[in-house]
């Protein structure tokens, strides 16, 4: 086996900036420190009278205040999810030294993922419509609730006038946005502001999730989200996400971008009808590796989707055993410390994977004490130093979305 990375992806886009807003840390390094220390951001679901909601644990981003970061006009126009996206975007751009990049505005794109839009703002305004009449509904309902709001606000705020879009594919959208960004770079754009955030912890948002039957009913935050564990009983939702600056490698080289966290070496997406989850995930993983030009043996770690529903966990572990061999590759799920952030979740996993590549260390799957033997996984239960060249990130979205991406040093 060759030890060199197979590189058939000269034009693979490079990540030059990261911004994170997560339940266990606001700001990239704060999040990463907490994650490596195994500090969880899960706690009681709060913020409203939760009586009658069969969800008790969530990943709130406590202490997040957008006020110092965003102008009053933008605050008036936006939902919490967009504010988180804009703050993370600002940090990613600063991290990439984008201000000094001298970009032509028409060569820079914005492509974000969102799976539920402006839940809190939408609920507030619909309540006004119901109780006080149409004259009381804010005009910002028209632009604040819908999925493209974060992309639009980021485009306006930073003056990026290249191709702009939003990807809606639940958890998988965070990876699909990167693929869309790669497409734009291949078409000649210079840079893309991309990633995803979500704020799904308001009453209406929680109500929409309850009927899926996928949420953990547990009351103890330490036991609520235990993927691949004998006690796995569903996931808990969280809020936040991550934004990135993704650049054409030549463009990043020419301007001397200060950070190169890693390259987007491969991506694939599929759609699984009921009962086909395992077959589609298997194919998507293999297609992503093909796209990256890598054999399975060159993948050094997997950031799992880690649904924590026993059937979906079994699908995922079986695919990983089939592709990489039983216990054949380290598998981790730092989302055990944040909950699933939907569109923000895969984006946050990408941030963790890039930081893992940078620091050559794998974050733990927190809280899992009794991994179920039938999964045949090398599950990373404690922070583990590792030689990492290529990592695979998996994401499945409720409804059938399946995506995978390969990140390389």
């Amino acid at each position, binding site marked *: 086996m060759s030890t060199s990375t197979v590189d058939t992806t000269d034009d693979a886009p490079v990540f030059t900036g990261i911004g994170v807003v997560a339940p266990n840390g606001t700001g990239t390094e704060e999040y990463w420190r907490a994650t490596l220390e195994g500090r969880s951001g899960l706690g009681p679901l709060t913020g409203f009278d939760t009586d009658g909601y069969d969800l008790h644990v969530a990943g709130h981003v406590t202490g997040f205040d957008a006020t110092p970061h965003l102008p009053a*006009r933008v605050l008036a126009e936006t939902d919490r999810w967009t504010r988180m996206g804009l703050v993370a975007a600002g940090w990613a751009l600063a991290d990439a030294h984008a201000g000094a990049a001298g970009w032509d505005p028409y060569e820079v794109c914005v492509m974000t993922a969102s799976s539920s839009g402006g839940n809190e703002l939408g609920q507030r305004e619909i309540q006004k419509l119901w109780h006080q009449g149409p004259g009381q509904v*804010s*005009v910002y309902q028209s632009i604040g609730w819908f999925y493209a709001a974060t992309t639009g606000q980021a485009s306006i705020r930073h003056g990026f006038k290249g191709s702009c879009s939003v990807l809606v594919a639940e958890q998988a959208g965070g990876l699909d946005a990167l693929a869309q960004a790669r497409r734009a770079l291949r078409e000649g754009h210079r840079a893309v502001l991309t990633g995803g955030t979500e704020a799904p912890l308001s009453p209406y948002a929680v109500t929409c999730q309850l009927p899926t039957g996928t949420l953990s009913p547990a009351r103890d935050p330490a036991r609520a989200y235990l993927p691949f564990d004998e006690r796995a009983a569903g996931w808990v939702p969280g809020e936040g996400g991550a934004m990135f600056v993704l650049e054409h490698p030549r463009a990043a080289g020419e301007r001397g971008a200060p950070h190169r966290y890693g390259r987007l070496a491969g991506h694939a997406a599929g759609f699984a009808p009921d009962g086909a989850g395992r077959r589609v995930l298997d194919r998507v993983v293999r297609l992503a590796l093909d796209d990256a030009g890598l054999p399975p043996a060159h993948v050094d770690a997997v950031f799992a989707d880690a649904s924590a529903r026993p059937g979906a966990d079994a699908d995922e572990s079986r695919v990983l055993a089939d592709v990489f061999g039983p216990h054949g590759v380290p598998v981790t799920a730092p989302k055990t410390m944040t909950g699933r952030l939907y569109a923000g979740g895969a984006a946050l996993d990408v941030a963790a994977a890039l930081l893992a590549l940078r620091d050559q260390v794998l974050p733990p799957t927190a809280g899992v004490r009794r991994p179920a033997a039938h999964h045949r996984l090398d599950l990373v239960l404690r922070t583990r130093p590792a030689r990492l060249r290529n990592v695979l990130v998996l994401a499945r979205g409720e409804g059938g979305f399946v995506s995978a991406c390969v990140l390389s040093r």
Partner: protein
Amino acid sequence: MATPITLDELLRVLATCGAELQEAGDDAGDAPFEELGLDSLALLEVEAVLRNGHGTELPDGFLGRVHTPNEFVRELDALSQEVS
């Protein structure tokens, strides 16, 4: 009904609708709405807040005719005199 409004009252309403008044400082009254960060959508919000919070109904086309807070106050004052 076109009830008059003072500049201070109007500026308070503009601020709740996201106007950036600090930079303009004492000159806010004569700053064009765009310079205060108020686009056409924000002005629709201003119209709604005045109607719901102050009982001030702006006549059709009013917002198209005024471009600064002072013009807004003067024009509304003139209209209220016409009516009474």
